């Protein structure tokens, strides 16, 4: 069995328009990979396709979780298989408290008839909220409703920590975070790094990668990865700008 998240020759379109074009990527357990690229290049599309969103048409290719193709599975099955997506734009769920939502998500992973231990659950929840410097009062608030951008992102990381996934895909978690929040969230993520878990960190800016130091950096342009390197690549990208990517790789991808 392969211990990795593997995307193979993935072609995805929406409304007849090709978005991912022969996309390939392997993130082994224990590693953190960063995926960078200009707006509109297909990063969020990749994330949602992996999570089983049905608006996108998969023309061909595979997404393998530990060697098992998850394309075509329902989003909840993919979640149970161990993939977590921290959304770029988390949804508001009015009237459903954070505590109840995470509890329901954890409960959904238990076998029929087994109940969550409420005392342990709250202990765990509070500890993780404390680590993320979230006010405990937040547990009673409706999920994401009226949250600031930064609060939403923190709440995504809280859910990620609580659900203990094997593969974490974080879509622009840094956007909307001020520098303090960025540090706190990054600490939360770093704390979760382990040989049993892999991260795909999608970001537009190098800034986040000062805190979550990646093993590999991929540059994406026009629906595919055009260049990969170590963490220095992110810095190079930052100084040269995305225009450099366009110039250097436009011909390659055409």
């Amino acid at each position: 069995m392969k211990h990795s998240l593997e995307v193979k020759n993935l072609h995805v379109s929406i409304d007849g328009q090709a978005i991912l074009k022969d996309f390939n990527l392997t993130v082994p357990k224990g590693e953190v990979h960063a995926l960078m690229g200009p707006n509109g290049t297909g990063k969020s599309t990749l994330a949602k396709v992996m999570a089983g969103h049905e608006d996108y048409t998969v023309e061909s290719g595979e997404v393998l979780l530990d060697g098992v193709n998850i394309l075509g599975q329902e989003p909840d099955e993919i979640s149970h298989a161990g993939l977590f997506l921290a959304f770029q734009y988390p949804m508001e769920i009015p009237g459903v408290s954070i505590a109840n939502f995470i509890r329901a998500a954890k409960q959904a992973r238990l076998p029929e008839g087994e109940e969550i231990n409420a005392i342990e659950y709250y202990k765990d929840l509070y500890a993780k909220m404390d680590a993320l410097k979230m006010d405990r009062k937040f547990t009673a608030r409706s999920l994401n409703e009226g949250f600031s951008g930064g609060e939403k992102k923190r709440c995504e990381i809280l859910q990620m920590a609580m659900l203990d996934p094997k593969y974490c895909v974080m879509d622009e978690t840094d956007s909307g975070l001020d520098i303090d929040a960025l540090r706190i969230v990054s600490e939360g993520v770093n704390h979760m790094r382990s040989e049993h878990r892999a991260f795909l960190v999608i970001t537009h800016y190098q800034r986040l990668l000062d805190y979550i130091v990646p093993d590999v950096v991929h540059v994406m342009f026009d629906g595919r990865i055009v260049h990969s390197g170590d963490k220095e690549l992110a810095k190079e990208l930052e100084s040269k700008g995305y225009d450099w990517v366009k110039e250097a790789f436009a011909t390659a991808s055409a």
Partner: protein
Amino acid sequence: MSDTDLQDQAIQVDTEKGNFKYPENYEFDAGLGLNEDTIKYISDVKDDPDWVREFRLNALEVFQKKPMPTKWADKDLENIDFDKIRYYLSKGQQPARSWDEVPDDVKETFERLGIPEQERKFLAGVEAQFDSEASYSRMKEDLEKDGVIFVGSSEGLAEYSEIFKPYFGKVIPTADNKFSALNSAAFSGGSFIYVPKGVKLKQPLQAYFRINAENFGQFERTLIIADEDSEITYMEGCTAPKFETTTLHSAVVELVALKNAKIQYITVQNWSSNVFNLVTKRGMADEGAEVKWIDCNIGSRLTMKYPGVVLKGKGARGEVLSIALANEGQHQDTGAKMMHLADNTTSNIISKSISIGKGRSTYRGQVHMPKHLKDCKNNTECDALLINTNSRTDTYPAITTRGQNNTVQHEASVSKVSAEQIFYMMQRGLSEGEAMSLAVNGFVNELMKAFPMEYSVELKRLIDMEMEGSVG
């Protein structure tokens, strides 16, 4: 999870819990159809006093004369074939005071519905009606000592007529609408309750209305009188098995809260999808009194129900808190009426409706504050939640206000559970049904905090079952 999928998969209404029936075995059966003989048969079986016989026959005439309200209401009403319904079915025995004396099939029915268990846990008294008559009726002894009366409609009118007759048919006159007339002609069963001055019931009384027979109409009649400074909470629950044929449920519920009394009336309705549920409910609140309706409508084919409060005395308060869930093929036509007839009266209406698939919800509100009144207040909030784009929701608020220092506040909202919200929740591991259920629970959550605990637990369970059943 496309819209069409959602629709295809949408909810088989039956919360399986209520969907079972026992073979029919009745001593008294008024037969199919409704005419004078049917009514006389019912009166004979019940040994009605003369004034009740006349009351029924007069009501029959009113019913026959009144047109169906299809001018404004759902045309589906025309599909009720009054000749294909049985108006009275009973096993003939008096209500038992111990579950051991209840016939086995009936006892098992109520056990499956959890009634004896609830009685032990938190109720002050229970009446369990099986088709036309109560099979079981019992109240805690200390309440009897306090002078509380808790009986069926026939017993109430025959044995306590000095108490009940002055109010019977007064809050809701026979001619109020076609279905109140039908009930006034054919009524049977229901609860007649009198709470003496100053007596405050700590636990609720409960009635459970069970329809077992096919082609049947259930017409229970309830009258609750809370004397000065008394308090009572009454809960009713209802279920029926799912039949191919039409079942009719047409109740009349009258509440009378005398000076400074409080009545809270709670309904947990969970009808199968072949039931026409056409119910008239109204309370009268005297000076300083309070009438509160908590009304939850799940299931049925068509429900028409607009609980109301007549705020008759100074400082009276009225409240309607309602939740309606309209599933595929259902129409929940609900609302509230507040009639302000005295100064300084306040009313509050909060209505939450959920429409799924082609399910349809309608809110009809009426708030009446005549010109000569002072310092009256009404607050109305009606919120609709749509689960998929084809659901339909309509609101018809009618507010007539004039006068000094009277305030009316009206808020309405329509929101949707979007495919993106469902995707978000499923990404966290919830099934589609669990995700929808959570969204619905979130929508009614705030309102449910105003409900007694036992009731919110039951309601949450019903919503979960309803939503779980909605997807594959």
